[in-house]
């Protein structure tokens, strides 16, 4: 299943970025948008986090 989820995320994100996100359970844009920068920062470098947030901004609470 991980490969399928990565393939879908790879529509927007480089596989290099999408793979660790999926591995960490962020398998869809919905989950990425619901996650905090701090949570994603545990998985991604600051540069990659900026890339992700440019595409999937954090949900406004």
């Amino acid at each position, binding site marked *: 299943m991980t490969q399928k*989820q990565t393939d*879908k995320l790879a529509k927007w994100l480089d596989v290099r970025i999408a793979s660790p996100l999926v591995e960490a359970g962020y*398998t*869809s*844009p919905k989950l990425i948008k*619901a996650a905090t920068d701090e949570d994603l920062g545990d998985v991604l470098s600051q540069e990659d986090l900026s890339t992700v947030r440019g595409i999937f901004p954090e949900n406004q609470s």
Partner: protein
Amino acid sequence: MPSSDVLWNLPLVRQKIFYPGQFGVPGTDSERGLRTDVNGTVFYVDPNASGVTDLRDGTDPECPLQTVAAALTHCQPYRNDVIAVMANGAWQYGENLYRTTPVTEQITVTVPGVRIVGLYPPGSVGVPWVPTANGGVMITVEALDVLIEGFAFTSGTYSGDAIYAEWDGATKFADNLTVRNCVFDDTVDKAIQLEYAWYCDIHHNWFVECDEHGVYIDPAGSGAAYSHIHDNIFHDCAVAMALSGLDNSWVVENIVYNSSAQSGAAATDEGILTTGGQSNIVARNIISCLLPVPANGDYDDLNTAAATDAWIGNELMNGPSVTNPT
């Protein structure tokens, strides 16, 4: 009427077995009744049938199942199974004298490759289907390649949504959904919601004064992609198509009427919205608004495009659009 376009031969007659099967001739002992495919099985559902129960195999139209949920338990993945739901007389403006029980269910489709079809006389709105509780979703799709057609979704005494399709890549895989030849009436909240579902085909439906949305994608969700929404009528829904995060899709030749926009009142994003998405074609839709003025209810007020969309030749009240709405 949408349901009159359902392709099906009526009436449905089970092929009775007059003789034992002939040795060496495959199929002569079939007890599965009318088929649309060499592999598929037709399961009949009719909650109005005399003595109806779910304790049957459902393959004989004279002994149908009571519920679609029970029929789904008999379906197998990619066997081309069909669930044929018989007509009922529960449409809200009818006499309510004959076959008055609507399909009253909230089901989850987990079997891929299943076709669920409402069979109704030509010219009707479709087989009425209502939820079982307030806020209920009548059909939740979690499987690939599901086709739904020929129903009139109506909330009856409840308030609810009609179809919700989700892909999460773990347990839910609702890509490739087709919804066609259905009516969603003025008691339905969200008619069709897509969540990360790709390659969906939504066509030849009527969305009539839906209370919330005709087709909806949650802006906090995962969007949708590669989908074709065409030849539908959205008549005065609170919001016709809120497609936040829709990518690489085609929204063409729909009719969108919005009474506020038609009269020049504010109707912000109540028509077609694709913000948060990218690279969609939105073309040749008929929309009840004026070209950008700017003013309340004009093209730019009623609709909003993604930056990389191409909105082409949408017919408005005073001419064709030549820009993406902002």
